[in-house]
Structure formats: C-alpha cells, structure tokens
C-alpha cells in the first residue's frame, strides 16, 4: 500500500516536472501552430547553465534556478526574433526540418563544450534524502518540485485568465488579424510568450537534472514526451496539458515499477491509441487545425 502511494507521489512529481518542461511547447505548438521539435534544447540550455553556475562558480542551487530561467528565455527571445518568426507561416514540413536542424546543432554543440557524460547538479543538503509521512516515503527534492511546479501552474492559470496580458494572448491566438486590428501588438505578444515558455523549459531542465538526467542527448530523448503532453492534452486551456503531464508522469513511473520489461512500450502504445481515438487530444477541442 505504501509503495503504491510512494510511486504515486513520484509520479506526480515527475508529471509536474514534465508540465513545466512542456507548457511552453503547448503554447507554440498548440496555440501558435508551430511544430517546434527543438523545445528540449531550451530545457537543456537551462539545465547546463544551472549546472555550470552551481558546480563551477559555486552559486547556491536556489540562485541557479532563476538564472536558468533567464538564460533560456534570453536564448529563446533571440532565436525567436532572428529565426523562428520567419517560419510561422511556413508549412509544417519546413518547421519540422528547421527545428530538427536546431536539435542536431544543440546536441553537437553541447557535446563539444561540455562533454558527452551525464551532468549532476550539486544539491544543498536540505534537499537530499526523504522523510516518512504516515509511513509513505516522501523525497525532499520531489516535494520541492511539486511545490515549485504547483505554484507556477497556479500562477500561469491566473495570468492567462485574469490579467490584461492573458487576454491579449488569448485574443492573438484566437484570431491574429482581428487582434492586431484592435491595436494588440501580436508579434510582440508571441515573442514574449515564446521567450517565457523557453524560460520555463530552462527552469524545468535545471530541476530535471536530478530526476531525468542531463546529457547532450536530452532534447532527442525527451522530445516525444513533450509532444505527448501537448498532443494528448490538447491546447484549449492550460489544464489539458497539465492533466496529460500528470497522467504521463504517473503512468510512466508506475509502468517502470510494475512492468519494467515493457519499458516505454506502454506509453507509446497509449499515445497512438489516444491520438487515433481523439485526434485533437483528450481534453482539447481545437488542438489540431
């Protein structure tokens, strides 16, 4: 019984992490309809920035996290302004080719600069080990992930639903032409959103070094997971991808624990079945246009 609860807890932490990693993609892929396979590269960039700051410059872990966010967001905004914005109107084939090219470049570049072995980020002592809560083993690090990601999710939901920027973004996504006619600076809104999504991915990358492992092949290894979150979750709201990430996280952890021999087989099969059953995602109505 307790092992089930511990697995559930780990699964939730994993799912929350996936959500933070992938919710930027939910905006670019789901809302802006841009197939960005290079999303994992931004996550990797954040992870490596945090690793260098903490391990080599001796920064405290909690100071490294915001820096990971900022670094990835900066890379995101530069690339968006220089490259991505030219491709919004192109065919999906062009977008796929372009982002696959970026992935290849980032993998080789990180391999060249940082080496190909897995990188660990030094954690403060307070985050190591686990404690018992009513007999359920709770990892401190995973608890922190749940707290951070939970707060971020709530914050995102609030920003999207309640603020002026949120309504601008929703308007720009619903109908870019009408939105710009109303005086909304659509390219700016998109650029900001893209950068913010990249920043979140960077933060997720820094957090995930301990759980998912951080090496130059990160963008390729987890690309399919991000895509699953977005396509299965749909994109009509932020709750769809959130629920999909939780499902994926719990399912993956449980699958690896109870049927380790099947490996990722279960996840891929489930994804194909869900996509065939509901091509627009489990929770979405307008995901694929």
């Amino acid at each position, binding site marked *: 019984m307790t092992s089930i609860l511990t697995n559930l807890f780990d699964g939730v932490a994993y799912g929350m992490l996936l959500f933070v990693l992938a919710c930027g993609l939910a905006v670019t892929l789901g809302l802006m309809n841009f197939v960005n396979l290079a999303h994992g590269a931004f996550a990797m960039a954040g992870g490596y920035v945090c690793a260098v700051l903490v391990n080599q410059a001796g920064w405290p872990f909690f100071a490294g996290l915001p820096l990971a966010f900022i670094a990835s967001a900066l890379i995101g905004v530069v690339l968006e302004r220089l490259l991505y914005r030219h*491709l919004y109107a192109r065919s999906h084939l*062009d977008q796929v*080719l*372009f982002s696959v*090219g970026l992935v290849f470049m980032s*993998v080789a570049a990180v*391999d060249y600069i940082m080496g190909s072995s897995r990188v660990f980020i030094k954690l403060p002592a307070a985050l190591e080990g686990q404690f018992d809560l009513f007999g359920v083993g709770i990892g401190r690090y995973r608890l922190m992930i749940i707290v951070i990601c939970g707060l971020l999710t709530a914050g995102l939901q609030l920003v999207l639903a309640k603020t002026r920027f949120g309504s601008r973004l929703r308007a720009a996504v619903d109908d870019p032409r009408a939105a710009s006619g109303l005086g909304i600076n659509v390219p700016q809104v998109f650029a900001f959103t893209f950068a913010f999504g990249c920043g979140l991915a960077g933060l997720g990358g820094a957090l995930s070094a301990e759980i998912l492992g951080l090496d130059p092949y990160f963008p390729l290894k987890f690309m399919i997971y991000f895509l699953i979150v977005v396509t299965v979750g749909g994109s009509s709201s932020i709750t769809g991808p959130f629920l999909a990430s939780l499902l994926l996280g719990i399912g993956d952890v449980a699958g690896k624990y109870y049927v380790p021999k099947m490996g990722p*087989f279960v996840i891929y099969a489930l994804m194909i079945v869900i996509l065939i059953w509901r091509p627009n995602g489990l929770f979405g109505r307008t995901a694929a246009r």
Partner: protein
Amino acid sequence: MTAQADVGYHAIQHGRWHRGEIAFWIVALACAFVFPSRYLIMTDIVRLALFALSLDLILGYAGIVSLGHAAFFGVGAYGAGLLALHGIIAEPVLALVAAGLVAMALGFLTSFLVIRGVDLTRLMVTLGIALLLEALAERFSSITGGTDGLQGIEMQPILGLFAFDMFGRTGFFYALAVLFLLFLLARRIVHSPFGLSLRAIRNNPLRAAAIGIPVNRRLIAVYTLAAFYAGIAGALFTQTTAIASLDVFSFERSADLMLVLVIGGTGYLYGGLIGAVVFRMLQEMFSTITPQYWQFWIGLVLVVIVLVGRQRLHRVALWLPNLVITQLAGRKAAVVLPESEAP
C-alpha cells in the same frame, strides 16, 4: 482535341524518358568502373537513395509528412537478417522481396492510423510507431539480439551465381540493380493515372475528393507501397553490411532521410537519388573536419536550407546546368524545376 485527350497527351509527353535521365543512369553505372576502390560508400549511397525514393513517394507525391519512416527500414533490415541468419530463405533476392513484403504488411496496417488526422497527428503517430518498434526490438532481445544487434549473418550467393566479395563489388551491382528496377516501377506508377490522382490529393484533398478520387484508399495504397520500398532498402542494408542493430529504427535515421530528400527536392523521383549523393558527400566532408561533431554541420545545413527557402535554393542550383543545356542543345532546358516546387 477534347480536354480529356489533351490531358492524356501532356501526361504521356511528361512520362517520356528525357536524355538527361538516360545520362543520369549511365553516369551511375559508370561510377562502378571509375571508382573501383569506393564500392562500400557507393553501396551506402544507393541504399540511401532507395530509402529516400520511398519517402518521396509519400511526401513528394501524396504530401504525407512522416517522422518515422525508419520503422519500415528497420522491419526490412531485421526481416532480411533473420531470414538469412536462420536460413529460412537463403537466396538473397527472394529474402529481399520477402522482407519487403513484411514491411509492406506493416505499412498497410499502420496506414489506417496515418490517414486519420492532419499533419501534426500524422507526425506523432509515425514517430510513435517507429519508437514503438524500437522498444519492441529491445524488449525481445532474444530474437533481435538487443543492443548487440544480429550478428554472424552469412549471405548466400545472389541467384546462386554471384557471391558477395569482401570489396563490396557484388553488393554494389546488386544494390544498383535493385534501385534501378524499383525506380522504373516507381516512375511507371507516378506517371500513371494513379500517380496523377495522388498529386491532386497532395495539392488539395478536398477538391480531389470532390472530383471523385477515393482519397483514403489512394493514400493507403501509396503508403503501403512506400513501406515496401523502405523495407527493401532496409533489407539491402542488412544484406550488404551483414549486420542489423537497433539503430535501424532510430529517429536520427528518419530525420537524416528528410534532409536527403530536401537537399534533392521532392516530387520528381530523382530528388532522393541526387540528395543521397550530396548528403553522403557532405557527411564525409564534415566528418573529416570534425569527426565527432559532424551532426552540428548537418543541423546547420538543415536550418540554412529552410531559412533560404527550398525553392530558391533549387532554382540557384539548377541555373548552371540549365544554362549549359540551353547553350548546347539550343532548346528548352531538359532539367526543370521539380513540379511541386515550381512557383
């Protein structure tokens, strides 16, 4: 002349063999005698060309974007490997066809998944199928050899006459012959009414359906055919290298394949063949400069191609050949823009 006869006349004109095409194949055959020390890499190019031809059938002619075409390549590779390893079908040509048919069966089954949904769903489903097969091949390592791959494959002589030699000479002629035969078949198919209807579907599925083309059935047919081609390419890979490992299913293989086709251009069949030559040369060049990091330059090529624009790039690349041809032959250029990319 009625409209129908007019269309037929132009289709037949378009289907004729140009001099350039004949020259292309003569050059390909001549390579075998000009570079006798390079059989291995030339065989590699021929295999890649066949694989790219297969993707061209669905991407260039039917407009299906696939991120998991390596699935069929892998099935063909393991199929041929297992047939040879266990001596079920010892004769390579029969084994080749058998492995292709297995991939074709898989293509037929998965085509029903692919025709549902739009681009994004297709991307995900094709990618998912390739990953699924990779996971399966890893899971049943007792059959596939797991991460070590199939080892100890020994090939019998082709048709009982030509034994594979260590220089890869037989392998090259074998691969080239297979490529040529399958190319002839593909050429016949794309110039048939069936091929024309595929192009109509690619340009506008809704309109194609409105003029009475059974869209889904045509897509299933061409997807199955492409799976057969990819399976043959995979089987050739196993037969000429005598190994099959898990990386036949890898995402990089599918992604590289798209690059090959994009370099050559889609929708005129020769794109895959030309792209394969250019891609391998680029790869060789990059890996002599930076052995470990050639992927970076491949990525850069992809990004630049997309940013410059595929059409513009091909226009520039074709400018010189066209100039030479118009000067020498003094008539309409024989090398024209791929139809799908003409402005």
